[in-house]
């Protein structure tokens, strides 16, 4: 099968999965109709508003009609409104809130993934190559503790460590709450307003990407960039610490499996230096096998991200999910669930495509 045929086939197979995901979110969001209606009412709570919502969502129609309107609303961005009990943004459309909340989460996840790939993969390779040596034991123990450690706990411990009264030297300590210290760069500090200060669309200043690290660089504000970096590093480290174990362990075992294969023996017996054998022959194939577990890894990573966001006050989807769930704000909770699931489905697709590119054998069936 040609690569493009495979890509098209995988894209077509995506449709039932996305449909299935919406069925599940449909069932869950219609499990408590009262909460659902409240979520679509916006700021006004009245009988008239409720009747309008019931009419708009066709809640008095048969289930398939309800599903049809649910589905259309989902894909046209009509996700309801934030609960009136929300202290700051009551009545904001959920979709707008999603656009604001998504970039910080993506930023945190990407940095954490970079950590895992930069540290977890090489550790796995090293551990496989130096089997049963000190490095191997240390790595395996670290990976074991990594998968066993509660995310929220290590997050809190790191907060204590880097916090103002922590044992770290003063220059390593950071203000750890949220993304960046807005007061430091707002009107108060130098009298000049840095362009990216607008958090939620205040005073018409635009945030081009929503990614703190990118925005600050786009505006050429180096101190702010460093500040943003300082804030993202620690939560990203927490996420990476709790999710690198899976990848490292899998990389180790696929390294060991590859190193036992015939062509490695051939490569060695023809006199290639061990370094080349590992780098060019073994590692590449082990990478291929490790890609297959990336899907489950992403699901775990995002679970970790949501908890870490809550602990560090990171203004992303995870924190939104928990505050919304605590206020029984059903539409927000369902929106985050839907987004997370779609992200993972797409991540899985990309992983599959990379794998089929790395290892053409999977395209055969």
């Amino acid at each position, binding site marked *: 099968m040609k690569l493009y045929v495979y890509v098209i086939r995988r894209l077509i197979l995506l449709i039932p999965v996305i449909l299935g995901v919406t069925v599940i979110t449909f069932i869950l969001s219609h499990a408590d109709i009262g909460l659902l209606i409240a979520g679509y009412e916006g700021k006004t709570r009245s009988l008239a508003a409720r009747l309008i919502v019931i009419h708009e969502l066709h809640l008095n129609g048969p289930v398939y009609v309800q599903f049809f309107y649910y589905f259309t609303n989902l894909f046209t961005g009509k996700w309801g409104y934030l609960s009136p009990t929300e202290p700051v943004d009551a009545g904001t459309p959920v979709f707008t809130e999603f656009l604001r909340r998504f970039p910080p989460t993506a930023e945190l996840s990407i940095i954490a993934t970079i950590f895992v790939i930069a540290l977890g993969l090489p550790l796995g390779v090293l551990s496989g190559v130096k089997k049963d040596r000190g490095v191997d034991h240390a790595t395996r123990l670290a990976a074991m*503790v990594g998968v066993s450690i*509660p995310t929220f706990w290590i997050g*809190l411990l790191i907060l*204590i460590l880097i916090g103002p009264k922590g044992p770290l030297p003063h220059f390593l300590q950071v203000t750890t709450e949220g993304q960046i210290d807005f007061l430091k760069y707002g009107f108060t500090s130098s009298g000049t307003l840095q362009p990216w200060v607008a958090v939620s669309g205040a005073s018409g200043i635009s945030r081009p990407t929503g990614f703190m690290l990118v925005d600050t660089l786009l505006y050429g504000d180096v101190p702010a960039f460093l500040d943003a970096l300082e804030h993202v590093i620690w939560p990203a480290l927490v996420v990476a610490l709790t999710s690198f174990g899976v990848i490292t362990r899998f990389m180790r075992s696929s390294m060991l499996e590859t190193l036992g294969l015939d062509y490695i023996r051939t490569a060695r017996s023809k006199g290639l230096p061990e370094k080349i054998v590992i780098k060019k022959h073994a590692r590449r194939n082990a990478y291929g096998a490790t890609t297959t577990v990336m899907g489950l890894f992403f699901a775990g990573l*995002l679970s970790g991200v949501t908890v870490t966001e809550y602990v560090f006050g990171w203004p992303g989807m995870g924190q939104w999910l928990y505050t919304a769930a605590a206020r029984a704000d059903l539409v927000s909770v369902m929106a985050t*669930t839907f987004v*997370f699931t779609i992200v993972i489905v797409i991540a899985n697709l990309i992983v599959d495509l990379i794998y089929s590119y790395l290892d053409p054998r999977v395209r055969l069936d």
Partner: protein
Amino acid sequence: MLYFLTRSPLSTAGLVITIFYVLLAIFGPIIVGGNPEFMREVLYYNGQYIYNTPLPPQPAFPFGTTYGGFDIFNGVVKGARIDLEVSALVVFSGALIGSVLGAIAGYVGGTVSDVIMRITDIFLSIPFIVLAVVLLLVLGKTLTSMVEALVIVWWPFYTRLVRGQVLTAREHKYVEASVAAGASPFRTVLRHILPNSIYPIYVQVSLDFGNVILTLASLDFLGFGFAGQNLAEWGNIIGLATAGGGGVETITSYWWTILIPGLVLLILVVSLNILGDGIRDVTDPRSRM
């Protein structure tokens, strides 16, 4: 199997610590006394009102107290029972449901398998904590709904695992022989296929005990547990440390309210994982390599 397990010092340590926690779960609440589900609350100590000032570890409170005047030692001991109870319920029901579905998918194949596996895929694509939070919102905050939510989160892992096992096992000659001898599919699966693919399920079960405890603790930490703040569950005890408000500064001053319950949790989960790895090494020597 026990003999082989105790050959490795690491697995032995895991086994011993796990047994210690199980004993703690059984006898702990009886020894420390009081309601086995809720922590002991001490509002006055030495004439001082300690609701808002956690006391550091001292003879009267070996692990100190946390916000609300809760005795951490008391809570940690009682927590063993709740955590192990919930995780046992979740893991065994999840494994049972998942294995049955996986066995059906693997043995029957065709459309049935496709449908089951697509549903499994969808459940596996939702981050498990997110799914659990949604389910708790819909089901309500009780211990039963916590167990139900975690079972709904957990079964798909087993379906996928068992299906793979059954697919491999059904190619064997003894399955063919069983079918040729006129055994019903039910009997073939139950008597011949499942027993021969059970070890990976054991391994997964032992590893999942730790995972469920972690998830339960996270959910309780986030405040999705049941019955309010005095529940003796490790995640909930850690969550209380942040209940005082004041953010980083206060938790820095009262480090023991976080460190100690977390360590108790971590030691159990690490031991369970070591034990799971040990069981895998014993049952599948190839994975040792």
